[in-house]
């Protein structure tokens, strides 16, 4: 699905300024967590899933990608041309995580306002209404929209001006399952049109079904990026296969297998195999055993994240990154 490179992020870096009050300056700030020299190439029509624990820097990275936060060092380029902040914003459509649309303005007025900010026509803003499924609510006040509709409106604004790259921060939040399904279809159709999409989401099941490549972020650094298969290989995951048969395998075949799990009932024999010898399926079928299930088991995104970051699966959900993502340096006698 992916085409040529649409945008390159080279050694981009940003660090937040965090309060560090001193008695002589209660407003003093110092540099805290952020994104460390990150390289990422976005391909046309590619859907990239950005996964990391809380505080890993996902939102910061997405804000940098969309030009909301400045790039302190490194650069962003498109087709060999280094982009300024304004050029970057022109090419990227951004959907932030939390937009609480409120007020008496209508959906249409809001889209038209952002179309003016983006530099596209009123007609294109009205066309977006159909794309995001809010045509019937065009004249509704923002106050009357449900959370899912507000998410769609945010997506509509991100789509204004036909961006090359779509950056979505937790787009599935507040959506019902039907809306999520429609949303995923919409994203897939946008990707087919050549738009590169970067999605950060904690809805890993939805993400897993949607993405072409995965970017694992940990403590402001990209620890792995590529297709799920390439990351599995890089991280040393072995291919597991789930097999369910209608009768027990003969000993001759069993001896060839590395069985991780084995359970049997009167009607089915279930196994998880670490490696599958060549012609196993053929041998099973020729021995007259019926195959009920035969599927390769992919490691979940959580397992990949744990393997890439070294975090424990039991505690990963509760782990919040600390800000000490880089060693502190002394600058002019003061700790940075």
């Amino acid at each position: 699905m992916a085409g040529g490179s649409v945008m390159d992020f080279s050694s981009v870096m940003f660090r937040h300024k965090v309060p560090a009050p001193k008695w002589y300056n209660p407003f003093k700030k110092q540099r805290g967590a952020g994104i460390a020299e990150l390289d990422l190439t976005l391909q046309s029509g590619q859907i990239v899933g950005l996964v990391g624990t809380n505080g890993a820097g996902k939102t910061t990275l997405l804000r940098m990608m969309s030009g909301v936060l400045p790039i302190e060092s490194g650069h962003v380029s498109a087709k060999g041309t280094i982009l300024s902040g304004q050029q970057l914003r022109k090419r990227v459509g951004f959907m932030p995580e939390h937009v609480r649309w409120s007020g008496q303005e209508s959906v249409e007025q809001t889209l038209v306002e952002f179309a003016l900010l983006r530099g596209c026509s009123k007609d294109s803003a009205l066309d977006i209404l159909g794309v995001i499924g809010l045509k019937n609510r065009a004249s509704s006040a923002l106050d009357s929209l449900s959370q899912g509709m507000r998410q769609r409106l945010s997506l509509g604004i991100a789509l204004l001006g036909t961006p090359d790259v779509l950056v979505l921060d937790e787009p599935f939040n507040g959506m019902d399952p039907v809306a999520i399904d429609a949303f995923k279809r919409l994203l897939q159709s946008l990707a087919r049109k050549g738009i590169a999409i970067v999605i950060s989401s904690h809805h890993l099941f939805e993400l897993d079904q949607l993405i072409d490549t995965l970017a694992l972020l940990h403590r402001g650094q990209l620890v792995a990026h590529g297709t799920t298969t390439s990351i599995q290989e890089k991280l040393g995951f072995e291919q597991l296969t789930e097999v369910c048969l209608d009768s027990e395998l003969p000993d001759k075949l069993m001896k060839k297998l590395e069985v991780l799990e084995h359970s049997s009932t009167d009607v089915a024999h279930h196994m998880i195999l670490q490696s599958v010898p060549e012609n196993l399926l053929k041998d099973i079928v020729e021995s007259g055993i019926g195959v009920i299930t035969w599927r390769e088991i992919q490691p979940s995104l959580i397992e990949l994240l744990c393997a890439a970051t070294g975090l424990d699966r039991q505690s990963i959900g509760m782990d919040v990154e600390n800000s000490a993502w880089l060693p502190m340096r002394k600058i002019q006698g003061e700790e940075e």
Partner: protein
Amino acid sequence: MTTSARMWKLVLIVFRRRVLSTRMLIMLPILFLFIPGMAWGFSDPNIQLPADQIPETAAETMFLASIGIVFAGTMAAVLLAHDGISRDRQSGVLELRLSQPMPRWRQSMILVIGNWASIAAPVTILLLISMWLVGYRSDMWISAGDSVVFVLAAWFVLLWYTVFALLASSLAKEQGSAIAFSIGLWFLFTLLWVLFTTLIAALNGVAVGESKDAAYSVFEGRLDLLSPNGVYHHLLETRLDNVNRGVSATGAFLAALAWTLFPLLWLTRRIKQLVP
């Protein structure tokens, strides 16, 4: 459509949003009471003012009535604009605005002009009504030159308070701090400035309390250049005879320019570096 044309359309959107807001509905009667109300009162032929001050021209009456702008106009400007940035920051809309390709200096100008115009428009109408009221009640009609200066000076002071409120809104992380900062500044320049001036004058050995003391007048006049309300009054005084507070018309105009440019530049810089 050119970027400038888009900018003006966005100014109109901000203007319409503010003018049709509930808070404008609440403030309009207050503005009406303070601006034409003051003009009505000060144009009473039988008015008794302290220190035997009797307005002898329409410009003098309008000068006295300008207290309505200082109290209600500037307060309305602050109340209209105080959440110009902080509200969007809290709702997450600011992040979306900052991700748009329109240059941020233009976005800051949209905010300033839109918010300023929304208070300047009703105040201008009320000022024109006030001028008519003064002429109608006292039969002293204000000259075209005076009326232009009075309207322009009002536009200036409203612009300054709008920019202060937006600056406060950009500095504050939430609306409570934004309004506290804006109202605090309004309070300082509108109510506490007299105390500040008196204190500084006393420390400098000037005869405080002697309202007709020339040295105090000049001292107060110069110190007033440090306050937006003071500069506003200096601009109005350029149209009054027999007023000498040590500041020339050029000085007053330059001070007005400084009060316009520096906060505007500060605000533009803030918005350029703004993070959600």
